[in-house]
């Protein structure tokens, strides 16, 4: 796998590609996607030999964020791809590309109510059939955070208007410690 | 009154035979049930039953009482008539073959010239019982178990009969006593080792025991054909299974291991039973031993083994036997 080539493809498909400090965050790249590019992205990742580690949703404002985690069997390359669902809480499925996503998507539907359009069998997996609309992992109003609040904060605040994560790998441990001791 | 005295010996004989049969069936189940648990325990480096009586020797009695005290549950959608009838059908026929087994040269219920046929005919009834029991439970696992039991038993009957047939060709009789008598210089296991091996493998399958216990494969079919059975109707199946083990081991003893012959003991005519039982229980120990050693085979492999290995070898063995008998 040629990482530069792959990165170029990411840049074509995504709105932002970030290099992340593995030592702190435990993954290498963060890719932000438009929701209609998710399937193209997944197909491309499969071609490059990535496997789907995980698929999950994070409930933030303005919309629920779906996070796809990919990794590669041969080289260390752990990628977090993020996309926001639309107003109908819908996003297209990738379960026909990565069959392993099938159950993850059903689980996400159970817990967050994210509807994966085109999923072959979007029935409750973990929850009981009658609890379809329980959506237990959605946050209460009081706890719900804006997407910027859960992004890595730069040392000096430089917020941007759009929900564009600017994760800075410079989030140094020293800074963290001083923050804690305060 | 005269008539009564004239038939008294025969009546006594019948009564004694029946009592002995019952004693053997139940006693064997007790002994084997206990021995199997103990052996399994020690093979697994644990002591086995230890609580009831010294070294748990009353465990089986207690289990029997427990099983008798249990409610006979008939599943709601089962066929009640057949469901109750099947265990009886499995258990009842095991008494008859015991009558023709020569425990020693004098201790034999009846010496029929069709002795082997009696054993085989009544053994085949057991199969019908398993099939009916599995079907009438109205449980998919039971049904699978019954199907497996039938295909397996029918298939393994062939090599079993062929291996016995090679002995029959040498002795020219179905009478078990005559077969034992024919082994006076040398046991047939020496002359027919292949037939003995084939017979040994076949009886493992015939008695539905591991590694061929597919009809009751508990990791696949929970408990196979007796999934729905409980209490006494379950224990009748178990009694039948142990009695069948005893019968097939006895047949192996009679046909291959010289029956009751052995080093002469005082009162030889009757004490031959000691040698006989020793041989039978050695074989049963072997059955237990392999049960607790091997994993279970898969169904198609079981059938393949029968058709690709056992039957050709049994046929070749039979052919060689026939040729040798004709030549010598």
């Amino acid at each position, binding site marked *: 796998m040629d990482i530069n080539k792959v990165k170029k493809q990411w840049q074509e498909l995504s709105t932002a590609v970030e290099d992340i400090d593995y030592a702190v965050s435990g993954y290498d790249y963060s890719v932000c996607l438009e929701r209609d590019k998710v399937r193209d992205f997944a197909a491309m990742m499969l071609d490059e030999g990535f496997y789907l580690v995980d698929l999950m949703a994070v409930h933030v404002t303005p919309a629920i964020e779906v996070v796809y985690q990919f990794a590669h069997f041969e080289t260390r390359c*752990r990628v977090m791809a993020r996309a926001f669902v639309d107003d109908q809480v819908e996003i297209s499925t990738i379960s026909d590309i990565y*069959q392993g996503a099938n159950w993850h998507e059903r689980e996400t539907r159970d817990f967050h109510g994210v509807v994966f359009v085109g999923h072959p069998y979007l029935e409750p997996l973990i929850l009981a059939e009658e609890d379809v609309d329980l959506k237990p992992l959605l946050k209460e109003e009081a706890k719900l955070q804006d997407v910027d609040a859960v992004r890595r904060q730069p040392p000096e605040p430089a917020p941007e208007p759009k929900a564009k994560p600017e994760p800075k790998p410079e*989030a140094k441990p020293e800074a963290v410690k001083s923050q804690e001791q305060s | 009154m005269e008539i009564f005295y004239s038939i008294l010996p025969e009546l006594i004989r019948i009564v004694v035979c029946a009592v002995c049969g019952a004693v053997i069936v139940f006693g064997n189940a007790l002994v084997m049930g206990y021995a199997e648990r103990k052996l399994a325990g020690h093979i697994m480096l644990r002591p086995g039953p230890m609580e009831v009586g010294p070294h748990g020797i009353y465990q089986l009695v207690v289990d029997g009482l427990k099983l008798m005290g249990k409610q006979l549950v008939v599943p709601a959608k089962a066929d009640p008539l057949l469901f109750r009838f099947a265990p009886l059908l499995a258990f009842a026929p095991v008494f008859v073959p015991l009558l023709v087994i020569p425990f020693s040269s004098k201790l034999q219920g009846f010496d029929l010239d069709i002795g082997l046929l009696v054993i085989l005919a009544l053994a085949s009834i057991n199969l019908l019982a398993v099939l009916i029991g599995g079907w009438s439970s109205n449980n998919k696992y039971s049904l699978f178990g019954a199907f497996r039991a039938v295909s397996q038993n029918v298939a393994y009957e062939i090599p079993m009969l062929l291996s016995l047939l090679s002995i029959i060709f040498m002795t020219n009789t179905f009478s078990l006593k005559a077969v034992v008598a024919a082994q006076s210089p040398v046991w047939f296991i020496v002359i027919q080792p292949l037939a003995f091996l084939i017979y040994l493998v076949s009886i493992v399958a015939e008695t539905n025991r591991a590694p061929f216990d597919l009809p009751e494969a508990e990791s696949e079919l929970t408990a196979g054909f007796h999934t729905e059975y409980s209490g006494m109707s379950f224990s009748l199946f178990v009694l039948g299974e142990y009695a069948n083990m005893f019968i097939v081991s006895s047949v192996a003893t009679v046909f291959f291991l010289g029956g009751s012959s052995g080093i002469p003991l005082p009162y030889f005519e009757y004490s031959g039973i000691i040698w006989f039982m020793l041989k039978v229980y050695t074989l049963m120990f072997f059955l237990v031993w392999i049960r607790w050693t091997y*994993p279970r085979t898969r169904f198609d492999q079981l059938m393949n083994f029968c058709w690709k290995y056992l039957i050709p070898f049994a046929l070749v063995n039979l052919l060689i036997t026939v040729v040798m008998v004709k030549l010598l």
Partner: protein
Amino acid sequence: MSMDIEVLEDSRHHRYVLNMGPQHPSTHGVLRVLLELEGEYAMELLPVLGYGHRCHEKIAEFKPAKSFMPNTARMDYLGALIYNQGFAQLLEKAAGIEVPERVEYIRVMASELNRIQSHLLWYGAYLLDLGAFTPIMYAFDDREHILDILEDVTGSRLTYCYFRVGGVSKDIDDKFVTSTRAFIDRLRSRFPMYEDLVNGNVILQKRLIDVGELTPHICARYGITGPMLRGTGVAYDLRRAEPYSIYSEFDFEIPTETKGDCMASFLVRFREMEQSLRIIEQALDRLPEGPIMAAKVPKKLKIPAGDYNSSVEAPRGELSYYLVSDGSDVPYRLKVRTPSYSNLSVVPEMCQGMLLSDVVSAMGSLDLVIPEIDR
């Protein structure tokens, strides 16, 4: 359209549904698999999950991240220490805590012992699925020794909560060293016995070879990791691929097989036990002195905002914790990616058209731990 339905019904006429589980001897817990059988061939499989769901991810959002440690042990009760390791590592990474070297060695040894005991239990239980009753007792005999060692150190036998953020709860002593060395010798001397009794057995080989074959491509599509993946010939082990803790310092092999069938993953797991023994041995040789707790671990562990991932090699495959923090000490979202979940999801494809007995052996080769799937 009606034609199609008719054809479908026609082809399915001989099929019927067998409900394997939730209480079935070979589903190892409360897993239910709906099988659509044709004769004894399973044409369709549908695993039904959720019988043992305990909302760990929701619980995590309600209490300080540090307090989630005991919950990790309950997800996979067989690889509890490795789950501890992953979570401790996640928080240490996030909070930037430097872990003393001795702690890393202790963690590695404990984790590897845990891995061996998990594999031993799988070994016995798998043989039980295949109908051999005795090996499980031998495996448990060996496993008890590990449990004794770990009990002496961690204080419990199954759901360990031994690792702490920044260290371990209790130091190891000479008794641990001697008993572990004795155990290593013992298990090594037992391997030939297992080879004779089980691995070489013709019945077992016939049951496992060519059953449930996987390819690396299938593994990528389903996200299968761990011994099943290594059985297909991909030497992907997170202890090597993304060396966490101090695994990069040890000399060990990643056992692989090429065929990808049940026998391959069976042998891979078996050989992994030997490799784990090697790691423990090296760790024992080099065990440094030092503190067992990081110097500065704040009482209230605030995690800087951002998202963190920590992946470790659990006995069944890749375990990933993904934590989203909003800057407080309570996780905003914690997602646990458990290996069995992805591994089980391949069952419908892997077992299609198999005999019922093969379904049992294929599912057993997944080494399922149901609480880990349901979480």
